[in-house]
């Protein structure tokens, strides 16, 4: 058994998806079709409901199946792959760090295999690559979260080469990718649970709603 409570991580992530919902929706309105906030929140709410029903299950494995089987859009199943791999890795070790590191590594690999995105394409991958690097180094859990969040933030300067956003090109530049932002919040939740007193910022300040001017694109 690992010591960081997966269940609390997933529930904290679910709360974060509520807090960040409007910001994520606005970001996906700028670069896509505006449903990413809904997709993420719905998937996590369903996971929490499933956890409430089936006591004792691995929270990341449950999240994996829910996202894989019930959440639509491009991001739903990709996040499902990530959770599934994390769940599988955590189930096979007592070492939190090794479990999360292996899980994120193989989750990222699966996402890239399936989604064919490279770093810099303005996708989920841009949050996961720095998070994995931090996990593999000797960063604190908070350091991992910060790496993921700043990877996501850096997508604001890039043009999408993958996904729906690739059709809008220039217009999305200046705002971060919704998917990368949403996935970074997983590491934010992990750090909150693992290191509650580390001083990591709140969602509202880390993921601001883009201004109207931005949204008009």
């Amino acid at each position, binding site marked *: 058994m690992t010591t960081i409570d997966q269940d609390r991580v997933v529930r904290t992530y679910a709360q974060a998806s509520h807090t960040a919902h409007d910001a994520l929706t606005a970001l996906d309105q700028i670069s896509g079709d505006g449903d990413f906030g809904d997709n993420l929140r719905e998937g996590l709410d369903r996971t929490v409901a499933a956890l409430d029903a089936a006591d004792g299950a691995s929270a990341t494995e449950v999240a994996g199946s829910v996202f*894989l089987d019930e959440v639509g859009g*491009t991001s739903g199943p*990709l996040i*499902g792959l990530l959770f599934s791999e994390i769940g599988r890795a955590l189930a096979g070790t007592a070492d939190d760090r090794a479990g999360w590191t292996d899980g994120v590594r193989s989750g990222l690999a699966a996402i890239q295999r399936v989604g*064919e995105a490279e770093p810099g394409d303005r996708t989920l991958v841009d949050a996961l690559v720095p998070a994995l690097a931090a996990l593999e180094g000797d960063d604190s859990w908070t350091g991992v979260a910060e790496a993921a969040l700043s990877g996501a933030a850096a997508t604001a300067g890039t043009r999408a080469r993958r996904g729906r956003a690739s*059709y809008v*090109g220039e217009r999305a530049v200046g705002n971060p990718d919704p998917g990368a932002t949403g996935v970074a919040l997983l590491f934010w939740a992990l750090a909150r649970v693992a290191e509650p007193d580390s001083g990591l910022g709140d969602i509202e300040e880390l993921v601001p709603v883009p201004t109207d001017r931005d949204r008009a694109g």
Partner: protein
Amino acid sequence: MNRLFLPDTKPVDTSVHGFARAHGSLVELHESPLFLTATAPHPDRRTALVSGGGSGHDPLHAGFVGLGMLDAAAPGRIFASPHNRQVYEASRAVAREEGVLHIVKNYTGDRINFGIAAERLRADGVEVQRVLVDDDLATENHQTATGRRGTGAALVVEKILGAAADTGLGLEELARLGDDVVAASRSLAVAGRAQTSSSRGGEAFSLAEDELEYGVGIHGERGAATIRRPALDRITEQMTTELLDGLPDVGDGVLLLVNGLGGTTPLELYAVHELVSQELEKRRVEVGARLVGTFVPALDMSGFSITLTSLRPGWLDRWQAPVRTPAFPCTEPRS
């Protein structure tokens, strides 16, 4: 709210039920997750063919489930990829000894959902390969990694691979054949009126009476250019030129598909067919086979696409091989 005649709730589900009811001898409906399988596929098949994609492009793909084409199809919501679980379960239901070949139109959502289904199938020990259909010339020069969209060539791939699969071809060979057919196929589409938006109602984008959207997509993506509408023979001339320029060697002739985008009449499509045929004749390009009709539409968009496939030895026989599906025409006199 809109002029499409669709039920207020679950339009795709209701429609698929009506489809299965109409073609009960050819297809079987599976619910939760939603997919259709062929009732009587060819007994010699060793590799199953599975496709799917957003609804609104019907008869693609469900209309091509049956003898001689697809083993299964997974319909998504309107213009949205099917969920990976639909693809996964459909593939499980029809997988054969050689495994499953996925025929996927090149859109991110479809690639990802078919990709995830493939991961899961492989985890179950089912062999999977993918043929990615990316024929739309209008998206050739995108500065992105998304590549050319998949449109009319999907039908060509499904028919030729279907006939090949019926001869017992293996997974690798079929995947290679599929890649070859895609590489030899290019499409271009134009529209004079956008499709009705299924969510908002009204036209999905607006064109003036004298405007033409050149290089339009099948989801209401606007085209490469909005131009002043030339006479029809000028449009077909330009499209033919661009398609031939975009194709490899056409020395063995071409397969010509004139496809309606939904709100285009047979009168118009056959006129387009005549004009394109005349252009090809002028350039001494032989037409080995022709198909005219509404097969890969964008809901009720008014417009048409032209697909040319540069023929290779043996492909014509596969194209003309017997078929029984809800939508592929079998118009040749019986021998």
